[in-house]
């Protein structure tokens, strides 16, 4: 069966520090991968998605970037965090068009 792993579960970082969040999927090949952010009390905002290794599409201009160095690995990064980067970050995968996405347990990021 397929599983998705995200880490860390929680992270507290100072303003201006770098960020690296990692997501890996097991049990499937060539998945579509997604990064979302969920601000407190709000819905999900799609940040990036990838349909293959090295292929990244950005949905909103921002202080973050994404990379996909391996088929089942998706990384969310920032060189300098802003206060507005705080939130709950979710990774997801899917394999077929028009099928649901499957989500990881998320990373709670707090910027101080």
């Amino acid at each position, binding site marked *: 069966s397929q599983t998705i792993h995200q880490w860390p579960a929680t992270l507290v970082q100072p303003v201006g520090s770098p960020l690296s969040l990692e997501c890996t999927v097991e049990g499937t090949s060539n998945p579509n991968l997604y990064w979302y952010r969920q601000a407190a009390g709000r819905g999900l905002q799609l940040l990036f998605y990838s349909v293959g290794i090295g292929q990244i599409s950005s949905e909103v201009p921002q202080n973050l970037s994404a990379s996909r160095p391996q088929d089942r690995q998706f990384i969310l990064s920032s060189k300098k965090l802003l206060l507005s980067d705080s939130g709950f970050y979710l990774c997801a995968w899917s394999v077929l068009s028009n099928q649901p996405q499957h*989500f990881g347990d*998320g990373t709670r990021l707090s910027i101080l």
Partner: protein
Amino acid sequence: AQSVTQLDSHVSVSEGTPVLLRCNYSSSYSPSLFWYVQHPNKGLQLLLKYTSAATLVKGINGFEAEFKKSETSFHLTKPSAHMSDAAEYFCVVGGAGTASKLTFGTGTRLQVTL
């Protein structure tokens, strides 16, 4: 273009009573529709999905939803609420194309009281 409207931001029910969470959608093609549940500080869990087969879809934990094309609705129901059902629920329209991007509703917070 597609969109999703969850008609209630907050619903409160007593334990043992029926649950109804309302969702209307707009899509330029025959959509796939999903309901997800999110418990505090957790990821989203798929409750059920409609992908153009049976219009009445049964999901996990006793939830079901009915696709009504004429009403462009996909309401989520459960006959008897349980305390563990208290969570945020998202109605979602599936995307076409390679990227399969989803369109999320703004969520309905379900409160279950004794």
